């Protein structure tokens, strides 16, 4: 006898693609992304909304995917770390995190990147104080944050250059 509960079926828009998926209705967006869509780039550190590791963008705003039911995301535009690069070309944030020490163990990186992207999308030239505030809900145990601030600043410079 199977204990699999009833499943719901819907289409989620993830990284610009319409993805049909069926899942148990109690599942969070985090769980559906990781377990049902195999998008394991989004991580979890607490599943209680305390650490920021699971941050994704929903309609352009950072959202803790462990606190949102996937059911509530129908029709919304979800962006995850898997959609950040442009083809094989890393997003300037990704390149900076890899180059200047923003990523050590890499576990908080996806949440940091998505949160930073939301910031830079709105504010192309944020001050360091603004950067510190923007990622204040994303815990990192490796870096002491400094090289993360520096990574975001470097990415902002590269993005501004690109726009010129």
């Amino acid at each position, binding site marked *: *006898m*199977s*204990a*699999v509960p009833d499943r719901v079926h819907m289409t989620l828009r993830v990284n610009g693609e319409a993805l049909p998926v069926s899942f148990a209705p*109690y599942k969070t967006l985090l769980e559906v992304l990781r*377990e049902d869509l*195999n*998008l*394991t*780039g*989004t*991580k*979890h*550190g*607490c*599943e*209680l909304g*305390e*650490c920021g*590791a699971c941050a994704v963008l929903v309609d352009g705003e950072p959202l803790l995917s462990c606190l949102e039911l996937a059911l509530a995301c129908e029709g919304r535009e979800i962006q*995850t*770390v*898997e959609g*950040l*690069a442009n083809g094989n070309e*890393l997003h300037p*944030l*990704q390149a900076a*995190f*890899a*180059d*200047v*020490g923003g*990523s*050590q*163990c*890499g*576990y*908080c*990186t*996806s949440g940091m*990147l998505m949160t930073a992207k939301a910031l830079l999308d709105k504010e192309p030239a944020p001050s360091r104080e603004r*950067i*510190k*505030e923007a*990622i*204040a*809900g*994303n*815990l*990192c*145990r*490796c*870096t*002491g*944050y*400094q*090289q*993360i*601030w520096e990574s975001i600043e470097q990415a902002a410079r590269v993005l501004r250059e690109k726009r010129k």
Partner: protein
Amino acid sequence: MNFDTIGKPRRRVDGRAKATGQLRFADDLAAARMLHCRLLRSPHPHALIESIDVSRAQSHPGVHLVLTGEQFPIPYGIMPVAQDEHALARERVRFVGDPVAAVVATDEQTAGEALGLIEVKYRPLATVSSPEEALANPEPRIHDYGEQGNIHRNQSYEFGDVDEALAKSDHVFEDLFFYEGNTHLPMEQQASLASIEGDGKLLLQTSTQNPHYLHRQLARVLQLPAAHIRVIATPNGGGFGGKCDPANHEFVVCKAALLLGRPVKICLNREEVFYQHRGRHPVLMKFRTGVTKEGRLTAMHLQTLLDGGAYGSHGPASTFYTGVLTPVTYELPRFKFEACRTFTNKPACGPKRGHGTPQPRFGQEVQLDKIAAKLGLDPAALRLNMVTKPDSLTASWLRIGSTGLAECIRKVVEMSGWNDKHRKLPPGRGVGLACSSYMCGAGVSIYWNKLPHSGVQLLLDRSGQVTVYCGATELGQGSDDVLAAIISEALGIDPSFVRCVTGDTGITPIDLGSYSSRVTIMMGNAALQAAGRVREQLAAACAAQLDTLPERVRFSRGRVYAAGEPGKAMSFVEAVALAEAKFGTLGAVGSYSPPKAPGRYKGAGVGPSPAYSFSACVLETEVDPQTGWITVPKIWIAHDIGQAINPVLARGQVIGGVYMGLGEALMEEQAFRRLPAKLSGALVHRTPSMLEYKSLTSLDMPEVEVALIEDPDPNCPYGAKEVGQGPLLPVMPALANAVYDAVGVRIDEVPITPDKVLRALEKKARGEAPRVGPESFPAVPYPAPMFVLPPWEGGDGSEVKKNDAAAVV
């Protein structure tokens, strides 16, 4: 030296995978027909298990297996002398959170439901909440082994007659310190996936720092030949020591996979990570230190008392580490060190970044600040005047090779503007200075053997790709990057031509693991040996074509050429093809064992290392006298790294260490409380969540200015010493000393919190001693010391009878 790769800032080899989310951590793995496991944990801090009824859980729809301690008769433990754990408790539970049973089901939800259907009858026992209680209550014993009662380890060493030296000293300072426990809090919760491979053998993919030690323990507990078990250490989402011990859940999922023939996965939830713990020991310390009126040390008597929690873990080593590295930083003619570790009914303590040494370093460096204040000396000058010399021995027979400590002190003094700030800033603002040292790898293995500590294998072929195999594990510290950098430098190729295969007991040569800051030095030396052997083959194969002698063949920037004759050159790929034609399949192995330690007394194996790193830190603080609130605007740190392999990563390790140290200094506490009697009186973790266990956020973290002091150490690959642990150590005492400089109160306790500052300020206002910290040290039944003469008093590093010592001198 002029390097192609070493010392150049570079994208880390695993940087792209991390930034794209492609790196697969343990919980990112899945397999067809995979089942999920969850653990039932004890709600009692100490109880006998009278019965376990799993029948309802077993028949719950979706449940495939329920396991209890019945299935795990064989104990384990990371250290041979502390085999005191079972994957699931048998007969007795020892802390709230001790695993008692496991359910394997189609999904986590179902497994969780079934946990609630397991009926366990417990008979609660009296509990021990602190070392003081452990000493006062030898019964009931938490374990039936150990020194006596609830004392796990108890030891005493004396290097020269300390009481005599103290009696002759101009001043003797006696101080008590307490360092609260704290935990690693890795971002990644521990996860493991066990499965049976096509060949019928067991595969465990798991977040572990030490796949080799885990492999040995799995073979023992599961009664399988080690060759039939493969452990892959998945990339760790932070370790900090918390993933060193073999963990209950790792045995459980392996057993379940073997019984069911299906993949079984577990991921601990965040609360469980606090119970798995193995973090910083709470330590009470007493320092009696003699000094001359000029401020030079004459002798030190250090006593420590460790709260070990419910199991042995690394405890025997942790106990040593609360003292053995104390004499490394400053010349100390005589040293006595007594240490005692007790069992208590709390999650087991173990190794956390700095393993056992941050606690005594805190006490030592705060006491030095008090000594400087009392003698009217500058704290930096006091320290500079007595730093240990290169190529010297300590009183305890540790061999110090290179040391950059003096340079570190001078550098932070200069960077921070110390001379214009110390005792000169306005009230409420202050600076504090502290130093430290750490080892570059433990000199002996955790289990006794004569085998190498690290092995590396290289494989090359005509494609020009170099594959390097090593059992070392990547925690985020950059061990793969170090490996690729060393191989590429030695062979003169770009790191992108090197593929690292690491942390897989089925494929890679043994490396003991990512602990004790050993990987760069030990893996690096093994890699250099392997690369040197390959270079000889390549040189022998190319020399004739280059019209030169094999010893004159050079390797750089993807070219192989004759020294001084750059016209005589070929590409690295051509050279490999020539060598493959001449010698057949190309490869080499390398291995490394640390040098033998000079001490010959029993216990001399803990503390020796091929090299020691040194750090000095200045921390500035602002303390609000109304609220006690502590702000840290800036930290300067200089770290003697020997040689940075990749300065981006080295700087990241330094800042990350400072961050973790500052968190410990200001707020992090793995602390416990008793529930009221009507709620069972259980001893529970105060804050088993990331929200309540306070750690620094991006908004709390000050700017850190880093200086890397590079003086290559001859025992280390390209001179590179450790950087992963050392820079954490001086931060806590630097804060305590800065608080004193700011508001004139001593907080002899970590963490240094606003309530303690306020209490100390109130005492100061009342004219009492402006200090908050432990008030007494219990009577610990330390054994009679093992007496060893320091090198400068004769002897050969062996134990001697204390009464005969005078005759030897």
